[in-house]
Every structure is written in C-alpha cells, then in structure tokens.
C-alpha cells in the first residue's frame, strides 16, 4: 500500500491554518513568577483584596509543590523541563482593558477573529451564539450581553465578574477545583488573568449558545484563563469554547481551569473544540495544554455533559470530570482526541459518584496517526453512599499507520455493591482494505480517511451543537491530512 501511504503522508505536511500573528501593542508584565508579579497582575486588573489574598495563597502552595515534586509525572507524556521563571504571566493588548462596545476594540484584533471565522460583530453573528473573546490574557469583547441581561443571565469576562458579582465569585471560585487540586490548578489560581463567567438564574433556559474563543497571540507568554459557570435551580445552559494560537517554534504553556456548578434540576452542556498549535511535524513548538476541568452536580437531578474535540496542542493533559453529588444526577463525557505527527495526548475523565442513583456515561474516541501517542485515562469511582449508581464506558482507539500508539488506563473503584458498571473497549486500524473499498467507489484517499474517521467519531459529534459539529468534522479532516503512514 506504499503509494497510498505516501499520498497520505504528503497530505500530513499540510500547514496549520491558524498560525498567523496579529501585530498589536502589548502591555505585558516582566517575565518570571513571584509574589510581586501576582500583586502586579491583581493591581492591573483592579481586583478587590480577597482576590489578591486568594492568589497569593495559591502561589505559596504552588511554590511548595514545585519545590517538593514539580509537575505531576504519572501521565503518559514526555516533555522537556518548563522554566516557570521564563514565562510572561500577563500580556494584554495595549488599550483600555474593559470595553463597553465593539467600536472600542482594536480593529487588528477584530480582524484576527474574523480570520479565525468568529464573527464578533453582532449583526454577523450566527443566530443564537453569544461570544466572549479572550485575546492573550484579556477578554476583549462579549457580545449579546444586553439581550442576555434581560433574562438575568450573566455572561461576562471573569475580570468583570470579580468587580460586579463578587459574592457569586467568592462563593463558587475554587469550590470545584481548589488551588490544592494539582500543580497546574495551583499555578492557574495564582496567575490567571481572565476567562469567562456565566450565571444562569433559577428556571431560566439560556436562549442561545454561549461561546468563548481563546487566542494566544503574544510570544513567550502563557495563557491561564479561568472559567466559572453556575447554573441555578432548574436552569439550562450550553457553552462552547474554541482555541487557536500562532505558529511559534518554542513551546507555550496553557494552564486553564474550568469549574461548573449545577444546582437542583439544572443542566450544563460544555463543548470544546481545542485546536491550539500542535507543533510542526518534527515536534518543534506547539502548546503545552495542561487543563483542569471539573463540574459539580451539586443539586439533585442535575446534569453536566462534557463534549470535547481535541485536535491541537503538542501535549494535551486534561480530564474533564463530574462530581455527582446530588441524588439522581447525571454526568457525561464524550471525547474525540486526535494526535498526529509528534503530538501527545493523555486525556479522559473522572466520574465521582456520591449521590444515590447517579449515572455516568463515558464515550472516548482516540485517533492516533503519524507518530502521535494517544492515551485514555479514566476514573470511575462509586462511593459508599452511591446506591444504585450506574456507569457505562466505551473507549475506542483508531490507529492510522504503524508508528503511532494508543493506550488505555481505565480505573474503576466501586465501594457500593449495588453499582452497575459496563466497560467496552476496542482498538482498530484503518486498513488498506477499507481505503481501497472507498477509493474503488471513487473517493480520493484523503476523503476516504476522513470518512472512516468521521464514522468512528459519529457518536461524539452528534453531541455537539450543529454548527460546531460541522466545524469539528472539517477540523478533523485537516488535522489528519497526510496521516496514514
């Protein structure tokens, strides 16, 4: 099959299409990490005292962790040492940091988002999608704020939330992912610069998809955003995030934290299409994506559903999980993770069953191509009080070529004998016979690969909102080009 392999390999050399750099003046703090830097960040953002204390507390804890153990070593990934003193922890486009309307946003930044296909101007918006855009460290614009406010929905940058809704922030910040959770969560808590904040009041069904696009632009900076979503009793919200970054030959660190809280009868649906720069085909450059995402189903009958499509980043380390505390609460995790060239992904989920009759579903689809390494790591834990808990896990790997790897580490910890657990796993390879079959029907090799992979991912894609599903399919096609080898 050498010639079809060659064709696929050629396609793999396709360039990353989101790798441009936008030329804007930056306001950045000096490199390095210490208490003064954290004070400076907090001051730049005009934060109240409680936030500064919270950050400093996290920073001290992080220093302790760094001294004692450094980064967590258990994941199935390898990377060189990260010099945390060689990173710029705050970079913002130089202008008024808080903007009342889009006219005040630097046109260069608006053009960047346009290139990325994110129409920020309200009249061009896809009907029903409100967008928050985070450029390097700062949220530059949130659309549809007015319309949402009429319904009592708060959708704003984290910085604004700290100023305008300090009680909500104080109550929930760190309540799902405390700064002591892990090394990167501690780092994020100390230096996070912005992110999105959502509050949906009791009984409100958020009338549109809420969406954040994250863009790393500046060199030598890390991006540390923090997202907090609170769905009050009986409410519903669907939230989407997308991410891209310029091509740079050095690695950049992205360490985000996302916390979701669902109260009684509330539902949160969180979808991610992650396409940070993956590095070149030799593995130079690319984003180190160390992310902690967790949702807490605090109330009874609440539901949190994670859907992720991870195609970018040199390293992906993330385990969006659910703490199923309320009785009858439901957690879901649908994931597609693709590693091509030298990309490494160690991703999966944690489902912690605490309440009675809690249910969780895990569907993970890992695709490895080139020399990519793809690991599923999942924990399903049924605690003593979780009578009647159920979990269904399906974990499939697809290999393209013979130089990649797929690994699976499912941990199951059951402490209540009434639990029902199901686990299914499969590993398959795109075979020459499948490709030949499709080509014999007239499809080009790349279309054939894309069709097989899309079929493989179907059960996850159908969980995505329509326009995102289309984007995800295209992205997968591009990320895979030239991958059979």
């Amino acid at each position, binding site marked *: 099959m050498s010639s079809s392999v060659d064709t696929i390999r050629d396609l793999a050399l396709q360039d990353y299409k989101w790798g441009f750099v936008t030329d804007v003046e930056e306001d950045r703090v000096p490199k390095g990490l210490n208490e003064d830097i954290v004070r400076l960040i907090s001051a730049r953002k005009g934060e109240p005292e409680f936030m500064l204390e919270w950050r400093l507390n996290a920073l001290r804890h992080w220093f302790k962790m760094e001294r004692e153990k450094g980064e967590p070593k258990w994941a199935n990934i390898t990377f060189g040492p990260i010099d945390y003193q060689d990173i710029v922890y705050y970079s913002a486009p130089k202008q008024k940091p808080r903007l009342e309307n889009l006219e005040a946003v630097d046109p260069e930044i608006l053009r960047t988002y346009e290139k990325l296909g994110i129409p920020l101007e309200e009249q061009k918006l896809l009907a029903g999608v409100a967008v928050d855009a985070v450029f390097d460290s700062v949220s530059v614009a949130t659309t549809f704020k007015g319309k949402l406010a009429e319904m009592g929905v708060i959708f704003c940058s984290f910085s604004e939330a700290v100023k305008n809704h300090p009680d909500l922030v104080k109550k929930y910040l760190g309540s799902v992912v405390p700064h002591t959770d892990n090394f990167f969560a501690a780092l994020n808590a100390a230096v996070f610069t912005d992110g999105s904040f959502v509050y949906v009041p009791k009984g409100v069904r958020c009338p549109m998809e809420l969406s954040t696009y994250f863009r790393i632009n500046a060199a030598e900076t890390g991006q540390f955003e923090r997202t907090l979503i609170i769905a009050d009793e009986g409410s519903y919200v669907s939230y989407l995030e997308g991410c891209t970054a310029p091509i740079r030959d050095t690695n950049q660190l992205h360490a985000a934290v996302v916390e979701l809280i669902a109260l009684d009868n509330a539902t949160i649906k969180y979808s991610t299409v992650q396409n940070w720069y993956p590095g070149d085909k030799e593995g130079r450059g690319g984003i180190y994506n160390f992310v902690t995402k967790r949702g807490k189903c605090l109330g009874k009958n609440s539901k949190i559903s994670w859907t992720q499509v991870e195609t970018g980043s040199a390293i992906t380390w993330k385990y969006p999980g659910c703490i199923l505390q309320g009785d009858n609460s439901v957690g879901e995790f649908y994931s597609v993770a693709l590693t091509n060239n030298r990309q490494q992904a160690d991703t999966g989920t944690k489902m912690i069953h605490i309440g009675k009759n809690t249910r969780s579903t895990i569907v993970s689809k890992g695709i490895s191509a080139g020399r990519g390494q793809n690991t599923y790591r999942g924990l399903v834990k049924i605690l003593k009080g979780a009578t009647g808990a159920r979990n269904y896990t399906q974990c499939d790997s697809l290999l393209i070529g013979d130089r990649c790897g797929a690994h699976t580490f499912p941990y199951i910890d059951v402490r209540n004998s009434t639990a029902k657990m199901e686990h299914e796993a499969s590993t398959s390879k795109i075979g020459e016979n499948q490709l030949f079959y499709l080509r014999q029907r007239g499809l080009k090799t790349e279309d054939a690969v894309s069709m097989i992979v899309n079929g*493989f991912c179907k059960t996850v894609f159908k969980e995505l909102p329509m326009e995102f599903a289309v984007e995800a399919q295209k992205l997968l096609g591009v990320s895979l080009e030239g991958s059979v080898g």
Partner: protein
Amino acid sequence: MALLEIEDLHASVDGHEILKGVNLTMNAGEVHSIMGPNGSGKSTLAQVLARRETYEVTRGKVLFDGKDLLEMKPEDAACQGVFMAFQYPVEIPGIGNAYFLRSAMNAVRKYHGQDELDAMDFLPLYKERLKLLEMDEKLMNRSVNEGFSGGEKKRNEILQLAMLEPKLAILDETDSGLDIDALRIVAQGVNAMRSPERGFLVITHYQRLLDYITTDFVHVLVDGKIARSGGPELALELEEKGYGWAETEAGISA
C-alpha cells in the same frame, strides 16, 4: 473500439507472479465470465483491473475505453467507470449506507465536472434500486455493511453497481456464500443493469451463477493464463468434466 483490451498481463503479489500473460478483449454490451480453479488468478485479475496497489503489474497493458488503465489510481479508474463488486465487502462503521452511496456518486460526478446530487435528487433513485434488489429501506440508515448478513452485503454491492452505473462491472465471486434466493436476486439486479453500453466481467468458481446470468463468453483461467475460451456451453462442459480437463487440454496439467 473495444471496452477492455488486456494484452499479455503479468502481475505479482509480494513477489509471487500470479498472472502470467492474460489476453482478453471485451466489447461494450458483452458479458464475459472468468472461471477457473482456486489460485488460478481470477481474483487477482479483478483486483488489478480495479487498480489495487498491493498488486504489482510487471508486464503487459490494459486499455479501458481506449485509455491506459494501468496508469490510473483506483479512484480514477472508478470515476472513469470501472466498478468492482467485492468478494468480501468492507464495513465502514458510523457512515450511513445512503450517505456513503451519495458521496461515491458525487465523487464521480465531481470528477466529470457535474453538479453534486442533493438528497432530493438521490432518494427516489435509491429507493427504486432498493426495490429492484428486494432490499429493506431500513438499510438506508444503517452503517455501510455493518451487521449485514452475507447475502445483504452482496446485494449491497449490486445496489452500488446499480446506482453508480459503471461502464465496466467486475463481479468478484459475488455468488460465493449465497443461498439460492440471494443468488437469484443478485442475478436479477445484474440482468437489469445489462445494457449495450456496459460490459460485465463475471468471476466465478461455479457454473451455477451462469444459470441466472446469461453470459456471452466463458474464459477458463488456469495458472495465470487463459487456457480456453468459448461460448456459454464451455461452462457446462467444465461443470461436467471438472477443471482438470481444462488444465490437461491446455497442456499445463498440475
């Protein structure tokens, strides 16, 4: 101009020569059957004509519709009108049968600079052809060949043939593993697709398929060469006397 002209075709798999000088000429509108014992190279001939890249052509030439077939990639040959019904149809999980067929038809249309078919253009034709092959409409939304019975898979191959309307249809042992009812339905589909513009190359181990499909010519392939050619009566003679007879006749007795 002949539809297919095969001249002194030699082909190898993993360094083993399987085809050792095949010659065959087929005109549009004709049905040619290739028979022969196991390992004689019948399926290899089919795969080479469909341009499978694991088969290496070492000598000879093949003209399809006057064009050099051996220069074509599988998808180009397909778009030019070469169709092969697979002996072992492949499963494509997660891709609906109808979606797959429409994608294939549109790939061919695009190749010829034609507009793509939308679902509204596609459906009536699809439903009509399903009926011809006595296939359940439910197959439309099932994944390609996934969970299909052996008979359903073969019928699905003929369904694709009927939708794609190729110039040259190669049936690679389509009858193998079919019960008599499925065989009848498959043959019915093939017969319905016969036309003055289309040629069929029917590869089979047994004569029984030819009870249902009227063939114009029969070729007996033995050890990578056509040992005998004749009319439909040759198939009956073979059935009676066995392949040993053809081998002896050809002077290449095993």
